[in-house]
C-alpha cells in the first residue's frame, strides 16, 4: 500500500487539490465533531446570518457521537456515523468554508457537487472501530450544544487519525470505483 499522506487542519485549497480518492491520510491537529441535530442548528444560524460557535474556514467536521469517557480517558469509543443523514446540511457548510468531512457511507450528488464547487473533501474512517479511533484522540472538549449529549459539538485534538479519501474534487468516488473493481 502507498504511504499515508499527513494533513493538519485548517486545510487550504492546495491541500484539497492534491488529494485523490483512495489516498490513505493521517490527520493530526484540531478537528470538530457534529452530527444530525448539531448540523441542523449550524445551518439555521447561517440562514439567520448569525455567528457559529466554531470556526468553519478550512476546518474538518467528524460525524461522530462518542460514548462517555471513562475517568482518565479523553473520550469514549468514537467511530464515524453514517453520513447521508448530514447530506441536506453539508452543501451549506461547504459554501461557508468547511473543507473536510469524516463519516462513513456514500454522499448525495448535491454534496459531491458542492465539494467540487467549494473544494471540499470527504473522508471515511472505519465504521465501528470506535475503541481504536478513540486512542488517536488525545483531547476532547465540548464547545457547543452540551444539551445534545453525544451529539454536542466537540473540539478534538487528534494524532495520526486514520482516514481514507472517498470523494475528491475531480469527481472520483471510492465507493463506486472500489466496488466496480471487485464486482463479479
Amino acid at each position, binding site marked *: *500500500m502507498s504511504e499515508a499522506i499527513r494533513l493538519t487542519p485548517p486545510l487550504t485549497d492546495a491541500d484539497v487539490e492534491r488529494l485523490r480518492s*483512495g489516498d*490513505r491520510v493521517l490527520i493530526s491537529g484540531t478537528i470538530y465533531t457534529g452530527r444530525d*441535530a448539531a448540523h441542523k442548528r449550524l445551518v439555521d444560524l447561517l440562514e439567520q446570518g448569525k455567528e457559529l460557535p466554531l470556526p468553519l474556514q478550512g476546518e474538518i467536521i467528524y460525524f*461522530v*457521537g*462518542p*460514548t*462517555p*469517557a*471513562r475517568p482518565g*480517558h479523553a473520550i*469514549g*469509543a*468514537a*467511530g464515524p*456515523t*453514517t453520513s*447521508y443523514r448530514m447530506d441536506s446540511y453539508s452543501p451549506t457548510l461547504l459554501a461557508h468554508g468547511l473543507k473536510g468531512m469524516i463519516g*462513513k*457511507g*456514500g454522499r448525495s450528488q448535491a454534496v459531491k457537487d458542492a465539494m467540487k464547487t467549494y473544494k471540499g473533501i470527504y473522508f*471515511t474512517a*472505519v*465504521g*465501528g*472501530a*470506535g*475503541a*481504536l479511533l*478513540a*486512542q488517536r484522540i488525545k483531547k476532547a472538549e465540548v464547545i457547543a450544544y452540551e444539551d445534545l*449529549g*453525544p451529539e454536542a459539538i466537540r473540539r478534538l485534538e487528534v494524532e495520526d487519525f*486514520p482516514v*481514507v479519501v*472517498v470523494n475528491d474534487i475531480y469527481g472520483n468516488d*471510492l*465507493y463506486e*470505483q*472500489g*466496488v*466496480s*473493481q*471487485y*464486482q*463479479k
Partner: protein
Amino acid sequence: MREIAVGSISDAVASLCMAANYELGDDMQAVIATAIDREESPTGIDILKQLQENAAIAAHDRVAICQDTGLAVVFVEVGQEVHLVGGDLSAAINDGVRRGYQEGFLRKSSCHPFTRKNTGDNTPAIIHYSLVPGDKVKIIVAPKGGGSENMSKVVMLKPADGIEGIKREVVAWVQQAGANPCPPTIVGVGIGGTFERAALLAKEALLRPAGDPSADPELALLEKDLLAAINELGIGPQGLGGRVTSFAVHVKMLPCHIASLPLAINIQCHAARHKEVVI
C-alpha cells in the same frame, strides 16, 4: 416451583450490557480472521486488521467496541416452573439496562421519535419474552446499533416469488445498503410467519454464532448460496470494494399463510454483540 428474585435478573442484565459492548465474541473474531485470508483488496485487508485491533483495545480498556452501543434488545426465556418474585420483571430488566449503560460508560441512544429528545438512560429496552419448559430463566442481551438496523426491511412477497424471489430480494437489498451498514455484515433473514414474526425471526437469526450454518440442510444451502451471491457484489469491507461484503448469512424460517410469503432482512455489522446467561 423455583423462586427467582427479579433483582438478580436486573443485575445480570446490567453486567450483560457491559460485557456485550466491550467483548467481541470468539465467533466474530474467528470470522474476521478468516476474512483476512479471503480478502484481496489491500484497503479491505487493512480495514479488517483495524477491526481486530479495535476488538483487542476495547476488551483491554473496557471501552465500547463501537460508539453506537445500541438499543438494548433483550430476549428472555422464562421457564414455566419459575415463580418470579420481588417485583415487576420488565421494570427490573429496564433497571438493569439503565445501570449497565450508566456504570459502563455506554452511549444512551434512545430518544422520542418526534422531538428526538433523549430518554437519558437508554430505556425502554426492547424486550422479547418467551415461555419455555423448565425452571430456569435465560437472558440474552443483544445491543443493536442504528447504522445497520436502518438498513433492514420487511417485504411481503407473493407465494409465486418462491425461493428465487427471496434470493433476488435479499441480494438486491444488500447491494442497495452498500457501505451504510458497515460491511462486512452478517445478514439475518427471516422467512415465513407473519409480517411481525418474520422481522423477529430475522433478528433471532443474528443470535446464532457467526458463520454456524442452520441445522436445516435446506436453509444451510440457502445461506451458502446467498453468501456467495452477496460476496460477488464487490462491496467489500466498509463498502470500499473487496471480496468480503458479508461474513455470513443466517436464515430462520416458519410456516406462513397460504396467501403470504413474508421476508425480513435484519443487517448486523461486525459489532455483532450478544451475551447470555442462564439463572
